[in-house]
């Protein structure tokens, strides 16, 4: 009950804790297309410590996972670029 009372309630300018928790993944993934909803969530995260911590944890997790991204082999990219250009130049040769 105390936890419920601590929850930030929804207003026109600010989302409630429940709304934020429901949309937190999508918000942090940049998947909230409605600007008003995004602004209301941002306003909530500025003032609610509990939700702010949750958001921070997910954001840190995302940053860390991003660093796991494999380094794309530049030679492989070069080969693919050549392959792509090859397709185009073959067409060019056909034109001539």
């Amino acid at each position, binding site marked *: 009950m105390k936890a419920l009372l601590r929850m930030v309630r929804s207003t026109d300018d600010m989302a409630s804790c429940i709304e934020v928790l429901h949309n937190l993944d999508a918000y942090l993934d940049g998947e909230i297309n409605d600007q008003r909803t995004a602004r209301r969530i941002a306003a909530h995260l500025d003032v609610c410590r509990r939700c702010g911590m*949750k958001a921070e944890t*997910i954001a840190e*997790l995302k940053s860390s996972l991003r660093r*796991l991204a494999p380094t794309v082999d530049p030679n492989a990219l070069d080969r693919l670029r050549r392959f*792509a250009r090859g397709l185009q130049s073959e067409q060019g040769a056909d*034109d001539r």
Partner: protein
Amino acid sequence: MPAICIPGNVGASNSVERSGLTRAGNSQAAVTGFVHVFRGEMTINQDRDRVAEFEQHVVPYLDILLRVALALTRNYADAEDLVQDTLLRAYRGIDRFDGRYPRAWLLTILRRAHINRNRRQRPVLVADQDAALRELAATSDGSDDPERLVVANKFDGAVADAFYALPESFRQVVELVDISGLGYQEAATVLSIPIGTVMSRLHRARIRMKKRLFNDGYTREGKR
């Protein structure tokens, strides 16, 4: 001399008709020639357009295509082959592409190419993609797994452990969204699953990773 006149008339008539036909024929030939020239020009113009569109809509996405191909194949050589296959299909199909959302279009092509390659390699149709991907992952010995890089940072190491401990179906969604940077819809396209499934798997995967990090003392917040 009707006998002579008639043929003459006929001849004249034929001649007129022939000349008419000839004119029509010439005219037709001219039209046909024009059409050929026109079509030729159109073909050349279309081909030029195709090259330009390919350059504009496909080449800039080579990097992300290779990353996603790596996530699907878990092998550099296979990933490169898959992207080449995708490029070929994209080049052939670019006439039918409306120019909107090129990344999503390319990812759809990559996905189909990946499924077709699996079908070619395996005689049985791939009914359960997750099972197929689990199998693909299991057949990899890990030595060429691009994600298994040395992670110096302790937190990053713990996150990597939590990530690799995920079930394959969760791990793939995290890999596409958090590591490769795809949107929900793009990940859904690549994995041929509904967008809602992407969202729920991502959410559940994050809960699992957070719990593990919390239990290992890396975060203060481990629940939902």
